[in-house]
């Protein structure tokens, strides 16, 4: 196996060619979002769009610009489960200091709808996600990319530029949507479009080994 290069926008063909265990280097513009961001996207954008059955959907005036921007940024890109440590330079520009992944499973209730609604090609985090996200990956052409837990300095170094930030004042620094340009962000595919999850496979195999070792 070799390292696969992925560049945003990621095509559906590219993501469907990936398999669990593939090592990937991701480059391009991606967006961070964790607990507050996921709840907000579902409650403010996804649900009103579903219930109103109108175009444009019933989204509050003050949120329309963020919605437009997020739709534009996220289509063909990934959302990164990360609460970064950031620093603001004197001229006002932001930079990432430490930016390791946070545990993804907390977003399981939201992620399938977000993948579908925003046209995500992937989710980046750690620890893996559940069966609903796995199904959404298959149905809509997305993958779960596992970043290396604890690799905070390296990932911050892969962030070439902080382009902008949305909802920072409302959600605070760790929970905001940071739009960043990354280069060669090292990732491993652990859930793919073919219904495979390394997390399920490893848990089952290690359960069998445990049974053998403890003699039960």
């Amino acid at each position, binding site marked *: *196996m*070799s*390292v696969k290069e992925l560049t945003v926008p990621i095509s559906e063909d590219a993501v469907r060619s990936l398999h669990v*265990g*593939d*090592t990937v280097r991701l480059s391009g513009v991606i967006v961070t979002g964790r607990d507050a961001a996921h709840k907000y996207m579902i409650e403010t954008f996804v649900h009103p769009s579903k219930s109103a059955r109108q175009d444009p959907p019933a989204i509050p005036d003050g949120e329309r610009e963020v919605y437009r921007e997020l739709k534009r940024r996220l289509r063909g890109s990934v959302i990164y489960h990360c609460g*970064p*440590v950031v620093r603001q330079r004197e001229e006002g520009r932001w930079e990432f*200091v*430490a*930016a*390791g992944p946070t*545990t993804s499973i907390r977003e399981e209730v939201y992620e399938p709808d977000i993948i579908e609604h925003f046209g995500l090609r992937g989710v980046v985090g*750690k*620890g*893996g996600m559940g069966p609903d996200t796995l199904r959404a990956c298959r149905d809509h052409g997305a993958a779960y990319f*596992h970043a*290396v*837990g*604890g*690799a*905070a*300095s*390296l*990932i*911050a*170094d892969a962030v070439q530029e902080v382009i902008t930030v949305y909802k920072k004042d409302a959600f605070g620094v760790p929970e905001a949507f940071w739009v960043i340009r990354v280069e060669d962000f*090292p990732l*491993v*595919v*652990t859930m793919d479009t073919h219904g495979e999850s*390394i*997390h399920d*496979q*490893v*848990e089952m*195999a*290690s*359960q069998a*080994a*445990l049974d053998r*070792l*403890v*003699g*039960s």
Partner: protein
Amino acid sequence: MDNLTESFVELIRRAATDLPSDVEAALRDARDREVSGSGAEGALNTILENVAIARQNGTPICQDTGVPIFYLNVPRAAQEGCISTQDLRGQIEAAVVKATEQAYLRPNAVDPVTGRNSGNNLGKGFPSFHFQEWDEDYLRAELLLKGGGSENVSTQVKLPHAPLDAGRDLDGVRKVVLDAVYQAQGKGCAPGVLGVAIGSDRGGGYVHAKEQLFRPLDDTNPEPELMKLEERLLRECNELGIGPMGFGGKTTVFGVKVGAYHRLPASYFVSIAYMCWACRRAAMTVHGEEVTFK
């Protein structure tokens, strides 16, 4: 003995931004053993690159700098070179505040009642201190930075433990340790190091389990029975195949250190401190004016 605040800032900086050489070497060996091109190898390569970058930039290896845990051996009172543990505590607290300002430590002390983060890593029982007098005429301070992911998968089991048919003996200990590593999967940021305390009471069990994490990886247990248990557990934990980050692979843990402590007749606890790959421990000794870091 001079005011040691600046020396403790340096101890914290070293712990947060660099790995002990034995740990880094073990991660390199683990990388070399994994299948070329596998996710496990990729994760270990990323880990090793991250360590090099953190060292070079002087930035934290991991953004979760955990609870700073200090173990201090101090000269006996009334002995040459003695120092009040109360003074020492004050100097270490000042050092923790400074190290937080200098971004070597993330502010991690959260009040569970109000939800407020103190912002400077000081709080009730935060950082964690363990003082002990000893017969030497110098001070030895050890620091462990242990993050939340690995702390969350640490566990304590009371033997006998029926679900695993684990009795009150070393084979029972072996079974519950293997189960703890299985339960953790990759969530403690594998590959990890296990500090295990057999016996003691519940509180002492975790304190001693974390003490075991200070032993160098190549340190062999002087107790033959425990040495055999450590070797067997290291081999069998890796047979679980969980691998780096839980991707599957050959190295799930790269160290198992076990200590045995007297227990109550009615209690037989096994306390398992799971340490992530970022096994950030550092030590310093103070002989009079001379401060040495290890």
